[in-house]
Protein backbone atom coordinates (compact mmCIF):
# COMPACT_ATOMS: atom_id res chain seq x y z
CA UNK A 1 0.00 0.00 0.00
CA UNK A 2 1.48 3.31 -1.02
CA UNK A 3 1.72 6.01 1.62
CA UNK A 4 -0.51 9.07 1.46
CA UNK A 5 0.61 11.52 4.14
CA UNK A 6 -1.63 14.36 2.98
CA UNK A 7 -4.78 12.26 2.70
CA UNK A 8 -4.10 9.89 5.62
CA UNK A 9 -6.53 11.67 7.96
CA UNK A 10 -9.36 11.92 5.41
CA UNK A 11 -12.80 10.70 6.45
CA UNK A 12 -15.41 9.66 3.92
CA UNK A 13 -17.74 12.51 3.03
CA UNK A 14 -16.75 14.92 5.80
CA UNK A 15 -13.94 16.98 7.25
CA UNK A 16 -11.69 15.37 9.89
CA UNK A 17 -12.20 16.84 13.38
CA UNK A 18 -9.53 18.50 15.50
CA UNK A 19 -9.59 15.64 18.03
CA UNK A 20 -9.35 12.96 15.36
CA UNK A 21 -6.40 14.71 13.73
CA UNK A 22 -4.62 15.07 17.06
CA UNK A 23 -5.39 11.48 18.15
CA UNK A 24 -3.97 10.21 14.87
CA UNK A 25 -0.65 11.88 15.54
CA UNK A 26 -1.41 15.37 14.28
CA UNK A 27 0.59 18.23 15.88
CA UNK A 28 3.24 15.79 17.12
CA UNK A 29 5.70 17.20 14.57
CA UNK A 30 5.02 20.69 15.92
CA UNK A 31 5.52 19.50 19.51
CA UNK A 32 8.76 17.77 18.55
CA UNK A 33 10.11 20.77 16.64
CA UNK A 34 9.34 23.32 19.35
CA UNK A 35 10.91 21.07 21.99
CA UNK A 36 13.93 19.62 20.21
CA UNK A 37 14.71 21.52 17.01
CA UNK A 38 16.04 24.98 16.26
CA UNK A 39 14.43 27.03 13.46
CA UNK A 40 17.59 26.38 11.40
CA UNK A 41 17.20 22.63 11.87
CA UNK A 42 13.58 22.74 10.68
CA UNK A 43 14.65 24.73 7.64
CA UNK A 44 17.51 22.34 6.93
CA UNK A 45 15.19 19.33 7.15
CA UNK A 46 12.88 20.89 4.55
CA UNK A 47 15.85 21.67 2.26
CA UNK A 48 17.18 18.10 2.71
CA UNK A 49 13.75 16.60 1.99
CA UNK A 50 13.88 17.89 -1.59
CA UNK A 51 10.35 19.36 -1.28
CA UNK A 52 9.66 21.48 -4.37
CA UNK A 53 6.89 24.10 -4.52
CA UNK A 54 3.56 22.53 -5.43
CA UNK A 55 1.96 25.69 -6.82
CA UNK A 56 3.53 25.48 -10.26
CA UNK A 57 7.10 26.74 -10.30
CA UNK A 58 8.63 23.77 -8.48
CA UNK A 59 11.29 25.75 -6.64
CA UNK A 60 12.83 24.22 -3.49
CA UNK A 61 10.61 25.28 -0.55
CA UNK A 62 13.43 25.19 2.00
CA UNK A 63 15.79 27.18 -0.23
CA UNK A 64 13.07 29.80 -0.71
CA UNK A 65 12.96 30.18 3.07
CA UNK A 66 16.74 30.44 3.27
CA UNK A 67 16.70 33.62 1.12
CA UNK A 68 15.10 35.51 4.00
CA UNK A 69 17.96 37.45 5.61
CA UNK A 70 18.33 36.49 9.28
CA UNK A 71 19.59 39.90 10.37
CA UNK A 72 16.99 42.32 8.93
CA UNK A 73 15.07 44.17 11.65
CA UNK A 74 11.27 44.35 11.67
CA UNK A 75 8.58 41.74 11.09
CA UNK A 76 8.77 39.08 8.40
CA UNK A 77 5.74 37.44 6.87
CA UNK A 78 4.49 34.11 5.56
CA UNK A 79 1.66 33.96 3.04
CA UNK A 80 -0.02 30.70 2.11
CA UNK A 81 -1.13 30.89 -1.50
CA UNK A 82 -4.61 29.39 -1.66
CA UNK A 83 -5.68 31.48 -4.63
CA UNK A 84 -6.17 28.30 -6.64
CA UNK A 85 -7.49 29.74 -9.90
CA UNK A 86 -5.40 27.87 -12.46
CA UNK A 87 -8.03 26.24 -14.70
CA UNK A 88 -8.05 22.47 -14.24
CA UNK A 89 -6.73 22.71 -10.67
CA UNK A 90 -8.75 21.84 -7.57
CA UNK A 91 -6.34 19.99 -5.29
CA UNK A 92 -6.06 22.64 -2.56
CA UNK A 93 -9.85 22.80 -2.25
CA UNK A 94 -10.14 19.02 -1.93
CA UNK A 95 -7.34 18.94 0.65
CA UNK A 96 -8.79 21.75 2.78
CA UNK A 97 -12.36 20.50 2.62
CA UNK A 98 -11.09 17.19 4.03
CA UNK A 99 -8.48 18.49 6.47
CA UNK A 100 -7.38 22.05 7.28
CA UNK A 101 -5.06 20.95 10.12
CA UNK A 102 -2.06 19.75 8.11
CA UNK A 103 -1.86 23.18 6.51
CA UNK A 104 -2.25 24.98 9.83
CA UNK A 105 0.40 22.80 11.50
CA UNK A 106 2.66 23.24 8.48
CA UNK A 107 2.26 27.00 8.64
CA UNK A 108 3.14 27.14 12.34
CA UNK A 109 6.24 24.99 11.69
CA UNK A 110 7.21 27.10 8.68
CA UNK A 111 6.68 30.32 10.65
CA UNK A 112 8.95 28.91 13.34
CA UNK A 113 11.60 28.07 10.75
CA UNK A 114 11.50 31.50 9.10
CA UNK A 115 10.91 33.57 12.23
CA UNK A 116 7.39 34.74 11.38
CA UNK A 117 5.04 36.10 14.04
CA UNK A 118 2.04 36.68 11.76
CA UNK A 119 1.07 34.52 8.80
CA UNK A 120 -1.75 34.82 6.27
CA UNK A 121 -3.79 32.40 4.21
CA UNK A 122 -4.81 34.13 0.99
CA UNK A 123 -7.89 32.22 -0.17
CA UNK A 124 -9.87 32.69 -3.36
CA UNK A 125 -13.56 33.49 -3.73
CA UNK A 126 -15.63 30.32 -4.15
CA UNK A 127 -13.68 28.26 -1.59
CA UNK A 128 -16.11 29.13 1.18
CA UNK A 129 -16.19 25.66 2.75
CA UNK A 130 -12.37 25.49 2.82
CA UNK A 131 -12.23 28.99 4.34
CA UNK A 132 -14.78 28.00 7.02
CA UNK A 133 -12.72 24.88 7.86
CA UNK A 134 -9.60 27.01 8.20
CA UNK A 135 -11.32 29.61 10.41
CA UNK A 136 -12.65 26.84 12.64
CA UNK A 137 -9.27 25.07 12.71
CA UNK A 138 -7.46 28.27 13.64
CA UNK A 139 -9.79 28.98 16.58
CA UNK A 140 -9.47 25.35 17.78
CA UNK A 141 -5.68 25.65 17.66
CA UNK A 142 -5.80 28.95 19.55
CA UNK A 143 -7.90 27.29 22.28
CA UNK A 144 -5.52 24.32 22.47
CA UNK A 145 -2.47 26.58 22.82
CA UNK A 146 -1.09 25.50 19.44
CA UNK A 147 -1.40 29.02 18.03
CA UNK A 148 -1.15 32.51 19.54
CA UNK A 149 1.12 33.54 22.40
CA UNK A 150 3.86 31.24 23.68
CA UNK A 151 2.88 28.08 21.79
CA UNK A 152 3.11 24.96 24.00
CA UNK A 153 5.23 26.95 26.44
CA UNK A 154 8.07 27.22 23.92
CA UNK A 155 8.31 31.00 23.89
CA UNK A 156 7.44 30.99 20.19
CA UNK A 157 4.31 32.97 19.25
CA UNK A 158 2.43 32.93 15.96
CA UNK A 159 -0.94 33.98 14.57
CA UNK A 160 -2.65 33.03 11.33
CA UNK A 161 -5.26 35.18 9.57
CA UNK A 162 -7.47 34.18 6.66
CA UNK A 163 -7.67 36.80 3.90
CA UNK A 164 -10.58 36.13 1.54
CA UNK A 165 -10.19 37.46 -1.97
CA UNK A 166 -12.80 38.38 -4.57
CA UNK A 167 -11.72 36.46 -7.66
CA UNK A 168 -8.84 37.40 -9.93
CA UNK A 169 -6.34 34.94 -11.42
CA UNK A 170 -3.33 37.29 -11.21
CA UNK A 171 -3.58 37.30 -7.40
CA UNK A 172 -1.89 33.90 -7.49
CA UNK A 173 1.34 35.51 -8.77
CA UNK A 174 3.31 36.02 -5.57
CA UNK A 175 4.15 39.73 -5.90
CA UNK A 176 0.60 40.48 -7.11
CA UNK A 177 -0.64 38.57 -4.07
CA UNK A 178 1.43 40.83 -1.82
CA UNK A 179 -0.19 43.90 -3.38
CA UNK A 180 -3.64 42.29 -3.07
CA UNK A 181 -3.07 41.50 0.59
CA UNK A 182 -2.01 45.10 1.22
CA UNK A 183 -5.35 46.17 -0.28
CA UNK A 184 -3.82 47.50 -3.48
CA UNK A 185 -4.70 46.64 -7.07
CA UNK A 186 -3.07 43.27 -7.67
CA UNK A 187 -0.48 44.11 -10.31
CA UNK A 188 2.80 42.21 -10.03
CA UNK A 189 5.83 44.02 -8.60
CA UNK A 190 9.28 44.23 -10.18
CA UNK A 191 11.94 41.75 -9.06
CA UNK A 192 14.42 42.52 -7.56
CA UNK A 193 13.82 43.25 -4.81
CA UNK A 194 12.62 39.70 -4.25
CA UNK A 195 9.82 39.17 -1.70
CA UNK A 196 12.24 37.26 0.54
CA UNK A 197 14.02 40.59 1.08
CA UNK A 198 11.27 43.16 0.55
CA UNK A 199 7.70 41.95 0.24
CA UNK A 200 4.57 42.43 2.32
CA UNK A 201 4.61 45.91 3.94
CA UNK A 202 8.24 46.02 2.75
CA UNK A 203 9.23 43.21 5.11
CA UNK A 204 10.88 39.90 4.16
CA UNK A 205 8.11 37.62 2.88
CA UNK A 206 7.73 33.98 1.89
CA UNK A 207 4.82 32.87 -0.30
CA UNK A 208 4.19 29.10 -0.40
CA UNK A 209 1.45 26.95 -1.89
CA UNK A 210 -1.07 25.11 0.33
CA UNK A 211 0.21 21.66 -0.63
CA UNK A 212 3.87 22.62 -0.04
CA UNK A 213 3.12 23.87 3.48
CA UNK A 214 0.82 20.93 4.30
CA UNK A 215 3.75 18.56 3.65
CA UNK A 216 6.00 20.20 6.25
CA UNK A 217 4.59 18.39 9.35
CA UNK A 218 5.24 15.01 7.70
CA UNK A 219 8.80 15.96 6.71
CA UNK A 220 9.55 17.07 10.28
CA UNK A 221 7.71 14.09 11.81
CA UNK A 222 9.20 11.30 9.70
CA UNK A 223 12.36 12.86 8.32
CA UNK A 224 13.72 14.01 4.95
CA UNK A 225 14.86 10.54 3.86
CA UNK A 226 11.40 9.04 4.36
CA UNK A 227 9.93 11.92 2.35
CA UNK A 228 12.36 11.36 -0.53
CA UNK A 229 11.44 7.68 -0.56
CA UNK A 230 7.80 8.47 -1.31
CA UNK A 231 8.57 9.43 -4.91
CA UNK A 232 8.94 6.94 -7.74
CA UNK A 233 11.74 8.82 -9.50
CA UNK A 234 15.23 8.70 -7.95
CA UNK A 235 15.58 12.51 -7.90
CA UNK A 236 11.98 13.20 -6.83
CA UNK A 237 10.61 13.66 -3.33
CA UNK A 238 7.19 13.22 -1.80
CA UNK A 239 3.72 12.55 -3.07
CA UNK A 240 1.74 14.87 -5.34
CA UNK A 241 -1.91 15.76 -5.39
CA UNK A 242 -3.02 15.24 -8.97
CA UNK A 243 -6.44 16.50 -9.92
CA UNK A 244 -7.83 15.04 -13.12
CA UNK A 245 -10.63 16.40 -15.26
CA UNK A 246 -11.88 15.99 -18.81
CA UNK A 247 -12.73 12.85 -20.76
CA UNK A 248 -11.76 10.08 -18.31
CA UNK A 249 -14.05 7.66 -16.47
CA UNK A 250 -13.26 8.81 -12.94
CA UNK A 251 -12.45 12.48 -12.49
CA UNK A 252 -10.97 13.03 -9.05
CA UNK A 253 -8.18 14.43 -6.94
CA UNK A 254 -5.74 11.75 -5.81
CA UNK A 255 -2.52 11.62 -3.81
CA UNK A 256 0.07 9.63 -5.75
CA UNK A 257 3.83 9.17 -5.62
CA UNK A 258 5.63 11.87 -7.61
CA UNK A 259 6.88 10.27 -10.79
CA UNK A 260 3.97 7.94 -11.55
CA UNK A 261 3.78 7.77 -15.37
CA UNK A 262 0.99 9.74 -17.05
CA UNK A 263 -0.52 6.61 -18.65
CA UNK A 264 -0.68 4.80 -15.34
CA UNK A 265 -2.49 7.73 -13.71
CA UNK A 266 -5.07 7.77 -16.50
CA UNK A 267 -5.48 4.00 -16.81
CA UNK A 268 -5.34 2.90 -13.20
CA UNK A 269 -6.41 5.87 -11.12
CA UNK A 270 -8.96 7.34 -13.51
CA UNK A 271 -10.26 4.04 -14.90
CA UNK A 272 -9.08 4.97 -18.38
CA UNK A 273 -10.83 7.07 -20.98
CA UNK A 274 -14.65 7.30 -20.84
CA UNK A 275 -16.52 4.87 -23.18
CA UNK A 276 -16.12 5.84 -26.82
CA UNK A 277 -13.16 8.09 -26.08
CA UNK A 278 -9.52 7.59 -26.88
CA UNK A 279 -6.67 9.71 -25.56
CA UNK A 280 -5.62 12.56 -27.81
CA UNK A 281 -3.85 15.03 -25.53
CA UNK A 282 -3.79 16.55 -22.07
CA UNK A 283 -2.66 19.61 -20.20
CA UNK A 284 -0.25 17.93 -17.76
CA UNK A 285 -0.22 20.62 -15.06
CA UNK A 286 -2.97 23.18 -15.46
CA UNK A 287 -3.94 25.71 -18.11
CA UNK A 288 -0.50 27.24 -18.62
CA UNK A 289 1.43 24.09 -19.56
CA UNK A 290 2.22 22.84 -23.10
CA UNK A 291 0.16 19.81 -24.17
CA UNK A 292 1.24 16.22 -23.77
CA UNK A 293 0.13 13.68 -26.40
CA UNK A 294 0.12 9.87 -26.68
CA UNK A 295 3.91 9.98 -27.21
CA UNK A 296 4.22 11.18 -23.59
CA UNK A 297 2.18 8.30 -22.14
CA UNK A 298 5.13 6.87 -20.21
CA UNK A 299 6.64 10.13 -18.96
CA UNK A 300 7.02 10.04 -15.15
CA UNK A 301 4.93 12.87 -13.70
CA UNK A 302 7.69 14.61 -11.77
CA UNK A 303 9.18 18.08 -12.26
CA UNK A 304 12.34 17.20 -14.20
CA UNK A 305 11.04 14.44 -16.52
CA UNK A 306 8.03 16.59 -17.50
CA UNK A 307 10.30 19.59 -18.15
CA UNK A 308 12.67 17.45 -20.22
CA UNK A 309 9.68 16.33 -22.28
CA UNK A 310 8.90 19.98 -23.08
CA UNK A 311 6.15 20.83 -20.62
CA UNK A 312 5.76 21.62 -16.91
CA UNK A 313 4.38 19.64 -13.99
CA UNK A 314 2.72 22.89 -12.91
CA UNK A 315 -0.05 22.39 -10.37
CA UNK A 316 -0.71 18.72 -11.16
CA UNK A 317 -4.04 19.60 -12.74
CA UNK A 318 -4.36 17.11 -15.61
CA UNK A 319 -7.03 18.01 -18.17
CA UNK A 320 -7.62 15.13 -20.59
CA UNK A 321 -8.96 15.53 -24.14
CA UNK A 322 -10.32 12.79 -26.41
CA UNK A 323 -10.15 12.28 -30.18
CA UNK A 324 -13.15 14.54 -30.87
CA UNK A 325 -11.57 17.59 -29.22
CA UNK A 326 -10.40 20.32 -31.58
CA UNK A 327 -7.04 21.46 -30.24
CA UNK A 328 -7.38 24.87 -31.90
CA UNK A 329 -10.70 25.38 -30.08
CA UNK A 330 -9.20 24.14 -26.79
CA UNK A 331 -6.27 26.54 -27.17
CA UNK A 332 -8.67 29.35 -28.03
CA UNK A 333 -10.62 28.69 -24.83
CA UNK A 334 -7.39 28.86 -22.82
CA UNK A 335 -6.21 32.06 -24.53
CA UNK A 336 -9.62 33.69 -23.96
CA UNK A 337 -9.18 32.96 -20.29
CA UNK A 338 -5.68 34.43 -20.11
CA UNK A 339 -6.54 37.50 -22.21
CA UNK A 340 -9.44 38.24 -19.84
CA UNK A 341 -7.36 37.63 -16.72
CA UNK A 342 -4.37 39.73 -17.85
CA UNK A 343 -4.08 42.51 -15.28
CA UNK A 344 -3.21 45.00 -18.01
CA UNK A 345 -0.07 46.24 -16.30
CA UNK A 346 2.41 45.52 -19.12
CA UNK A 347 1.98 45.98 -22.86
CA UNK A 348 3.10 42.57 -24.21
CA UNK A 349 0.50 40.74 -22.10
CA UNK A 350 -2.30 43.32 -22.35
CA UNK A 351 -2.01 43.74 -26.14
CA UNK A 352 -0.39 40.43 -27.15
CA UNK A 353 -2.89 37.99 -25.68
CA UNK A 354 -5.97 39.58 -27.33
CA UNK A 355 -4.06 39.55 -30.62
CA UNK A 356 -3.26 35.84 -30.26
CA UNK A 357 -6.92 35.27 -29.38
CA UNK A 358 -7.96 37.13 -32.53
CA UNK A 359 -5.67 34.97 -34.70
CA UNK A 360 -6.96 31.73 -33.15
CA UNK A 361 -10.58 32.87 -33.55
CA UNK A 362 -9.93 33.44 -37.23
CA UNK A 363 -8.28 30.06 -37.74
CA UNK A 364 -11.06 28.24 -35.87
CA UNK A 365 -13.73 30.07 -37.89
CA UNK A 366 -12.10 29.08 -41.20
CA UNK A 367 -10.52 32.49 -41.82
CA UNK A 368 -6.95 31.44 -41.19
CA UNK A 369 -3.93 31.91 -43.41
CA UNK A 370 -0.42 30.45 -43.48
CA UNK A 371 0.87 33.79 -42.20
CA UNK A 372 -1.09 33.30 -38.98
CA UNK A 373 1.09 30.34 -38.07
CA UNK A 374 4.17 32.55 -38.23
CA UNK A 375 2.46 35.18 -36.08
CA UNK A 376 1.61 32.57 -33.45
CA UNK A 377 5.18 31.29 -33.54
CA UNK A 378 6.59 34.81 -33.08
CA UNK A 379 4.31 35.50 -30.14
CA UNK A 380 5.52 32.42 -28.26
CA UNK A 381 8.89 34.23 -28.13
CA UNK A 382 7.62 37.81 -27.92
CA UNK A 383 5.42 37.28 -24.87
CA UNK A 384 8.45 36.21 -22.87
CA UNK A 385 9.15 39.95 -22.67
CA UNK A 386 6.14 40.50 -20.44
CA UNK A 387 6.41 41.68 -16.84
CA UNK A 388 5.41 38.45 -15.06
CA UNK A 389 4.86 34.77 -15.82
CA UNK A 390 1.19 35.07 -16.87
CA UNK A 391 1.76 35.68 -20.58
CA UNK A 392 4.60 33.15 -21.08
CA UNK A 393 2.40 30.62 -19.26
CA UNK A 394 -0.55 31.51 -21.46
CA UNK A 395 1.57 30.78 -24.53
CA UNK A 396 2.40 27.28 -23.22
CA UNK A 397 -0.64 25.67 -24.87
CA UNK A 398 -0.03 27.69 -28.08
CA UNK A 399 3.50 26.38 -28.15
CA UNK A 400 2.15 22.85 -27.64
CA UNK A 401 -0.38 23.37 -30.43
CA UNK A 402 2.37 24.42 -32.85
CA UNK A 403 4.63 21.60 -31.79
CA UNK A 404 2.20 18.66 -31.70
CA UNK A 405 -0.83 19.65 -33.77
CA UNK A 406 0.58 21.47 -36.79
CA UNK A 407 -1.32 19.16 -39.17
CA UNK A 408 -4.62 19.88 -37.44
CA UNK A 409 -3.85 23.61 -37.45
CA UNK A 410 -3.01 23.55 -41.19
CA UNK A 411 -6.16 21.55 -41.94
CA UNK A 412 -8.22 24.42 -40.47
CA UNK A 413 -6.49 26.77 -42.87
CA UNK A 414 -6.59 24.66 -46.05
CA UNK A 415 -10.18 23.38 -45.54
CA UNK A 416 -11.31 26.84 -44.40
CA UNK A 417 -13.27 25.28 -41.56
CA UNK A 418 -12.80 23.40 -38.30
CA UNK A 419 -12.36 19.74 -39.31
CA UNK A 420 -13.64 18.49 -35.94
CA UNK A 421 -16.67 20.69 -35.40
CA UNK A 422 -19.54 19.04 -37.29
CA UNK A 423 -21.62 22.22 -37.16
CA UNK A 424 -18.86 24.45 -38.54
CA UNK A 425 -19.50 26.08 -41.89
CA UNK A 426 -16.84 26.26 -44.59
CA UNK A 427 -15.65 29.83 -45.00
CA UNK A 428 -15.47 30.93 -48.66
Amino acid sequence: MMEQPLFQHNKAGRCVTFNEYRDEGGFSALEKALKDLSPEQVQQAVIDSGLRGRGGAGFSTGKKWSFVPRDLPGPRWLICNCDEMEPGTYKDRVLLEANPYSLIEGMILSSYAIGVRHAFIFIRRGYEEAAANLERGISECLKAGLLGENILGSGFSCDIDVHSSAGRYICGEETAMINALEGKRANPRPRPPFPAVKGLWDGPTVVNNVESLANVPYIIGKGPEWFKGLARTPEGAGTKLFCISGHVVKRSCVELPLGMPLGEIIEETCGGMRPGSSFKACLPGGASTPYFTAEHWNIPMDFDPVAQAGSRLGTGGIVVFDQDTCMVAATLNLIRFFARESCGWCTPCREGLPYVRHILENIEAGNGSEEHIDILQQHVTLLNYSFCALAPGAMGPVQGLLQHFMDELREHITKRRCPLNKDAKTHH
Partner: protein
Amino acid sequence: MVPDQLKKALEQRVKASVTPREAAVAVMKELQRHYGWLTDEAVSEAAQILGLTSLQIEELATFYEMIYRRPVGKRVIHVCDSISCWAMGGESLLEKLAAQLGMRVGETTGDGMFTLLPCCCLGNCGDSPTMMIGDNIYGCLTLEKTLEILQQEMQMQIDKET
Protein backbone atom coordinates in the same frame (compact mmCIF):
# COMPACT_ATOMS: atom_id res chain seq x y z
CA MET B 1 -27.16 54.15 4.26
CA VAL B 2 -25.25 51.37 5.92
CA PRO B 3 -26.86 50.29 9.23
CA ASP B 4 -24.95 51.29 12.38
CA GLN B 5 -24.42 47.70 13.44
CA LEU B 6 -22.77 46.73 10.15
CA LYS B 7 -20.74 49.92 10.16
CA LYS B 8 -19.42 49.14 13.64
CA ALA B 9 -18.57 45.57 12.62
CA LEU B 10 -16.66 46.85 9.60
CA GLU B 11 -14.79 49.44 11.66
CA GLN B 12 -13.87 46.61 14.03
CA ARG B 13 -12.59 44.53 11.09
CA VAL B 14 -10.48 47.49 9.92
CA LYS B 15 -9.07 48.02 13.40
CA ALA B 16 -8.07 44.35 13.66
CA SER B 17 -6.03 44.56 10.42
CA VAL B 18 -2.29 45.16 10.26
CA THR B 19 -3.07 48.20 8.10
CA PRO B 20 -6.62 49.47 7.41
CA ARG B 21 -6.19 48.91 3.70
CA GLU B 22 -5.70 45.15 4.16
CA ALA B 23 -9.43 45.00 5.00
CA ALA B 24 -10.49 46.75 1.77
CA VAL B 25 -11.73 43.62 -0.01
CA ALA B 26 -13.48 42.34 3.12
CA VAL B 27 -15.27 45.69 3.57
CA MET B 28 -16.32 45.79 -0.10
CA LYS B 29 -17.65 42.24 0.10
CA GLU B 30 -19.68 42.96 3.23
CA LEU B 31 -21.16 46.15 1.77
CA GLN B 32 -22.01 44.26 -1.40
CA ARG B 33 -23.73 41.60 0.67
CA HIS B 34 -25.82 44.33 2.28
CA TYR B 35 -26.75 46.31 -0.86
CA GLY B 36 -26.76 43.44 -3.38
CA TRP B 37 -24.08 45.19 -5.42
CA LEU B 38 -21.39 47.76 -4.72
CA THR B 39 -23.44 50.92 -5.18
CA ASP B 40 -21.93 54.41 -5.52
CA GLU B 41 -23.07 55.00 -1.96
CA ALA B 42 -21.24 51.83 -0.85
CA VAL B 43 -18.06 53.02 -2.59
CA SER B 44 -18.08 56.27 -0.60
CA GLU B 45 -18.93 54.42 2.60
CA ALA B 46 -16.10 51.93 2.06
CA ALA B 47 -13.74 54.85 1.40
CA GLN B 48 -14.79 56.55 4.60
CA ILE B 49 -14.50 53.39 6.73
CA LEU B 50 -11.06 52.55 5.28
CA GLY B 51 -9.65 56.08 5.17
CA LEU B 52 -9.15 55.86 1.39
CA THR B 53 -10.48 57.95 -1.48
CA SER B 54 -13.47 56.79 -3.53
CA LEU B 55 -11.11 56.50 -6.49
CA GLN B 56 -8.91 54.06 -4.59
CA ILE B 57 -11.98 51.92 -3.82
CA GLU B 58 -13.09 52.15 -7.45
CA GLU B 59 -9.67 50.98 -8.61
CA LEU B 60 -10.07 47.84 -6.47
CA ALA B 61 -13.76 47.26 -7.09
CA THR B 62 -13.36 47.18 -10.86
CA PHE B 63 -10.45 44.74 -10.59
CA TYR B 64 -12.25 41.83 -8.96
CA GLU B 65 -14.57 39.44 -10.75
CA MET B 66 -16.89 38.97 -7.78
CA ILE B 67 -17.39 42.65 -6.93
CA TYR B 68 -20.37 44.01 -8.88
CA ARG B 69 -20.24 47.69 -9.79
CA ARG B 70 -23.56 47.48 -11.62
CA PRO B 71 -26.97 46.35 -10.36
CA VAL B 72 -27.39 42.57 -10.44
CA GLY B 73 -30.25 40.18 -9.72
CA LYS B 74 -30.90 38.84 -6.25
CA ARG B 75 -29.05 35.65 -7.19
CA VAL B 76 -26.05 35.87 -9.52
CA ILE B 77 -25.33 32.74 -11.55
CA HIS B 78 -21.64 32.36 -12.35
CA VAL B 79 -21.13 29.65 -14.97
CA CYS B 80 -17.51 28.55 -15.32
CA ASP B 81 -16.18 28.95 -18.87
CA SER B 82 -12.66 27.63 -18.29
CA ILE B 83 -11.05 24.62 -19.93
CA SER B 84 -12.29 21.64 -17.84
CA CYS B 85 -15.89 22.85 -18.05
CA TRP B 86 -15.45 23.70 -21.73
CA ALA B 87 -14.33 20.11 -22.38
CA MET B 88 -17.52 18.85 -20.72
CA GLY B 89 -19.95 21.13 -22.51
CA GLY B 90 -19.93 24.21 -20.28
CA GLU B 91 -20.05 26.58 -23.24
CA SER B 92 -23.28 25.20 -24.64
CA LEU B 93 -24.75 25.03 -21.12
CA LEU B 94 -24.24 28.77 -20.74
CA GLU B 95 -25.87 29.47 -24.11
CA LYS B 96 -28.81 27.14 -23.46
CA LEU B 97 -29.32 28.62 -20.01
CA ALA B 98 -29.40 32.14 -21.45
CA ALA B 99 -31.97 31.00 -24.02
CA GLN B 100 -34.10 29.36 -21.30
CA LEU B 101 -34.02 32.55 -19.23
CA GLY B 102 -34.90 34.53 -22.36
CA MET B 103 -31.90 36.85 -22.23
CA ARG B 104 -28.29 37.25 -23.19
CA VAL B 105 -25.31 36.37 -21.01
CA GLY B 106 -24.60 39.36 -18.76
CA GLU B 107 -28.24 40.35 -18.40
CA THR B 108 -30.74 40.12 -15.53
CA THR B 109 -34.15 38.45 -15.70
CA GLY B 110 -37.18 40.77 -15.86
CA ASP B 111 -38.27 39.86 -12.32
CA GLY B 112 -34.85 40.88 -10.99
CA MET B 113 -34.15 37.37 -9.68
CA PHE B 114 -31.18 36.13 -11.72
CA THR B 115 -28.15 37.64 -13.41
CA LEU B 116 -26.21 35.28 -15.68
CA LEU B 117 -22.43 35.69 -15.91
CA PRO B 118 -19.57 33.55 -17.20
CA CYS B 119 -16.69 33.22 -14.75
CA CYS B 120 -13.15 32.02 -14.26
CA CYS B 121 -12.43 28.42 -13.17
CA LEU B 122 -14.26 27.66 -9.91
CA GLY B 123 -11.88 24.89 -8.86
CA ASN B 124 -14.58 22.24 -9.23
CA CYS B 125 -13.09 20.71 -12.39
CA GLY B 126 -13.66 17.10 -11.33
CA ASP B 127 -17.40 17.80 -11.35
CA SER B 128 -17.56 19.97 -14.46
CA PRO B 129 -19.55 21.65 -15.89
CA THR B 130 -20.00 23.78 -12.82
CA MET B 131 -21.53 27.03 -11.56
CA MET B 132 -21.71 29.12 -8.42
CA ILE B 133 -24.78 30.92 -7.06
CA GLY B 134 -24.07 32.98 -3.94
CA ASP B 135 -21.78 30.78 -1.86
CA ASN B 136 -23.13 27.54 -3.34
CA ILE B 137 -21.14 25.53 -5.89
CA TYR B 138 -23.02 23.10 -8.14
CA GLY B 139 -21.37 20.47 -10.36
CA CYS B 140 -22.01 17.78 -13.00
CA LEU B 141 -24.60 20.09 -14.55
CA THR B 142 -27.03 19.34 -17.33
CA LEU B 143 -29.56 21.88 -18.52
CA GLU B 144 -32.37 20.03 -16.70
CA LYS B 145 -30.43 19.85 -13.45
CA THR B 146 -29.47 23.53 -13.72
CA LEU B 147 -33.09 24.59 -14.16
CA GLU B 148 -34.06 22.57 -11.09
CA ILE B 149 -31.34 24.27 -9.07
CA LEU B 150 -32.55 27.68 -10.22
CA GLN B 151 -36.06 26.79 -8.99
CA GLN B 152 -34.61 25.86 -5.57
CA GLU B 153 -32.47 29.00 -5.41
CA MET B 154 -35.49 31.12 -6.29
CA GLN B 155 -37.55 29.40 -3.59
CA MET B 156 -34.79 29.96 -1.01
CA GLN B 157 -34.70 33.64 -1.94
CA ILE B 158 -38.48 33.97 -1.64
CA ASP B 159 -38.42 32.16 1.73
CA LYS B 160 -35.70 34.50 2.93
CA GLU B 161 -37.73 37.55 2.01
CA THR B 162 -40.97 36.43 3.65
